[in-house]
C-alpha cells in the first residue's frame, strides 16, 4: 500500500506549530517518514502537488475572505483536513482583537483602511470549511500530533481527553499555581497537552480552549478570591487564547 500523503498549509499564524513538526528528533522523524509521504510543506519544500492529498494539516486562522478560496481548494483536494494549533482550531491568540474595534488604527494609524489590510475577525478554519479533526494548543503538543497521525494511519480517531488540565497536572504531581500565590485556568482548560505550563511554573492559559461545561462563573470567583484579581481582570483573564469562546 502506498504511504498516505501529508501536506502542510498555513494561514494567519506564527507558524510555530510547523516548527514543532521539526522537533521530533532524528530517530522519530525518520521513523515517521517511513509511514507518510510529505508532499507539500511550503515552509520547507518547493515541491507542490496540485492533486489529491490524503491528510492536509492546516495551521492559522481564517481572517480574510480572500483566504476562503484557498481553504476550499485544500478541502477539495484532501481526504482528511486537520486544523492544528489554537489559531486554526479556535482563532487562538489572533482572536484577542475580536474584542477590540480599533486594532487596525492602532497599528497602522491613518493607513488602516487600505484594502490589503482587510482583516476581519480571526476565525477558526472550521468557519470556512469542514474540518475532520482538530489538534488544539499553542503550540500544538507534538506528541499529540503523533497520536493523531498514528490513529489516522490505522483508520481511527484519536480521542482528545474531555477533562480539564488539572487532571494531567495532578497526575504529574505539579505544585498547583494557586498554592504559590499565582493563578491558573487549568480547571476549565481542555487537557491533552500533558500540562507543561504549570509544571514550568506558569499558569495554564487555556490555549487548547475550554472543556465542555466549563464553570467560568466559578473561575472568576476563584481568580478573585484566591489569586486576588480585580473583577475586571478576572473577567478578562479567560479571553486570552479563548477570546472567540467568550462573549
Amino acid at each position, binding site marked *: 500500500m502506498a504511504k498516505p500523503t501529508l501536506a502542510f498549509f*498555513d*494561514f494567519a*499564524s*506564527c*507558524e*510555530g*506549530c*510547523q*516548527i*514543532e513538526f*521539526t*522537533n521530533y*528528533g*532524528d530517530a522519530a*522523524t*525518520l521513523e515517521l*517518514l517511513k509511514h507518510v509521504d*510529505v508532499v507539500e*510543506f*511550503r*515552509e*520547507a*519544500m*518547493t*515541491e*507542490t502537488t496540485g492533486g489529491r492529498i490524503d491528510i492536509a494539516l492546516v495551521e*492559522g*486562522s481564517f*481572517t*480574510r475572505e480572500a*483566504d476562503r478560496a484557498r481553504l476550499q481548494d485544500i478541502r477539495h483536494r484532501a481526504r482528511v483536513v486537520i486544523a492544528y494549533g489554537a489559531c486554526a482550531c479556535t482563532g487562538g*491568540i*489572533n482572536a*484577542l*482583537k475580536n474584542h*477590540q474595534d*480599533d*486594532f*487596525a488604527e*492602532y*497599528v*497602522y494609524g491613518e*493607513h488602516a483602511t*487600505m484594502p*490589503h*489590510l482587510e*482583516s476581519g475577525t480571526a476565525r477558526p478554519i472550521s468557519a470556512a470549511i469542514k474540518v475532520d479533526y482538530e489538534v488544539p494548543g*499553542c*503550540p500544538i503538543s507534538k506528541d499529540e500530533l503523533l497520536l493523531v497521525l498514528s490513529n489516522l494511519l490505522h483508520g481511527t480517531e484519536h480521542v482528545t481527553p474531555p477533562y480539564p488540565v488539572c487532571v494531567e497536572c495532578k497526575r504529574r504531581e505539579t505544585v498547583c499555581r494557586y498554592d504559590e500565590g499565582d493563578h491558573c485556568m487549568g480547571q476549565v482548560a481542555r487537557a491533552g497537552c500533558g500540562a*507543561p*505550563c504549570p*509544571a*514550568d*511554573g*506558569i499558569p495554564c*492559559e487555556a490555549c487548547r480552549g475550554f472543556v465542555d461545561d466549563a464553570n467560568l462563573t466559578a473561575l472568576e470567583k476563584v481568580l478573585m478570591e484566591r489569586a486576588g484579581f*480585580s473583577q475586571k*481582570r478576572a473577567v*478578562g483573564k479567560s479571553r*486570552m487564547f479563548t477570546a472567540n469562546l467568550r462573549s
Partner: protein
Amino acid sequence: MLHDVNINVHHLTRVEGHGNIVVNVTDGTVEQCEWQVPEAPRFFEAMVRGRHYSEVARITSRICGICAVGHTLASVKATEAALGIEVTEQTKKLRSLLKHAENFDSHVLHVYVLVAPDLLGAPSVFPLIETHGEVVARALRLKRLAHEWGSAIGGRTTHPTTVIPGGFAKLPTVKELEALREKILAAVPDLEATLDTIAALAPKIPAFDRPTEYMAVSSASEYGLYDGEAVETVLADGDRARYAVDDYRTFTNEYMTAQSTAKFTKNRLDSYAAGALARFNVNYEMLRPEAKAAAERLGLEPVCTNPYMNTVAQVVEVVHSAYEGLRLLDELIESGIADEGIVQPTRFASGASAVEVPRGILFHEYEYDAEGMCVRANCIIPTNQNHGNIQRDFDALLPRLLAEGISEDDMRLRFEMLVRAYDPCISCSTHYVDVEFVR
C-alpha cells in the same frame, strides 16, 4: 541578454511566512521588480493593550513561532525596563544561553533545510534523505540538540514557558546543565562536518556585492545577542555609529511613503541590513576563536557586502553559539544554580529593549499603568528592517542578471536564493502589509 522576463513566484517556498517575487521585463525595459508580502496582518500591538504585564510576553511570543524565544526575551526585557526590574546575573546568563540555543536552532534549520537544497540542486530536504542521508541525519541531530538545549532552559523552544518578567519561573538543575554540556560537546564532530559540507558548497554561493549599512546590538563584553548596551552600525568602509536602545525610533526611522503602506526603516543610507551577516560585520571582534577560524575557513571576512553570504555568517554563528554556550554552561555549573526568586516591579512606566533574533534586531517597547496593565506597545521586527534592503538588492541584482545573460529559470532561482539568504521571517507580521515600491 534576455529582453523579456516574467517571473512570478507566488508564496515563495522555504521561508517563514508568505512572500511573492514579481519581475517583469518587456523589451529590455524593467517594468516591475518587486518583493511583495501578502501575509495576513495580525495586530499584536493592539492586542496586548489591557493585558497584565505577566501576560504580555506570552502574547507577543506568538508573533513568531520561529523566533519565539527572541520575542519572549525582547518582550520580557522591555517589560522589565518599564517596571524598573533589574534581573540577576544568573538570569542574564541563563537567558543568554537560551538565546544561543535559538540562534543555533534557527540557523541549523535555515542552512540545512531551507538553503542546502538550493546548493545541492534539490527542491527540498525530503529527496535528500535518499541522496544525502548522512547530511539529513546530521541536520536532524543538530536540530534535536538545539531543541533539547532550548527546552532545558526555556521549558520549550516554541513559545518558551519559563521566561517571565523578573527571572525564571523554573530553573534548570545543575545536573540538567551538566547533561546539556555533554550533549553540546558530543555535537562537535557534527559541527566540524557541517563546516566541511558548507566549505564544499561555498563555491556555489553567488557572487554579488552591494554595500549597505549593517546594524546589530553591540556589547562591550560579548557578541551581543541577548545582552548589549547599545546598537551599532557599520558601513562598507568600516565607518561606525553607535546608538542608545531607547532611541530606537530615531535610528530605525519607520516611515511610510505615499505609494507604500509598509512600515520601512532606514538610517544613514536609504536602507540597512540586519541579521547574521550584519552582526558578523559589526561584532566580528567579539566572536569566539573557534568561530573566527570557521569564518576564515569559509572565506568570510568583515565587512562582507554579499547578501548571499548571510548563510555562511549563520554557520559561523552556529559555531560561536556552541562554544559560547559551553562557556556559559561552565560558569553556571561552577557557580551552581541559586533559587533567587522573581524580582518584583519597582514602578509602572515605559521601557524599550533590543534583542538579536536569528534574522536581526528585535525592538519591543511597552508602557504600563499603575495596575500593571499594558496601555501602549510597539514592536519592530527584523524582517521589516530588511525589507527595504531586499528591495534595493533586487534593484541592483536585476541589471546584473540581465547582463549575465542567464536563463529566466536561473534568474528566478537567484532571486529566490537572495530572499532565502535573508531568512526572512514574514510571519512576524506585526506591521506587515502588501508592499509596492517606488522607483
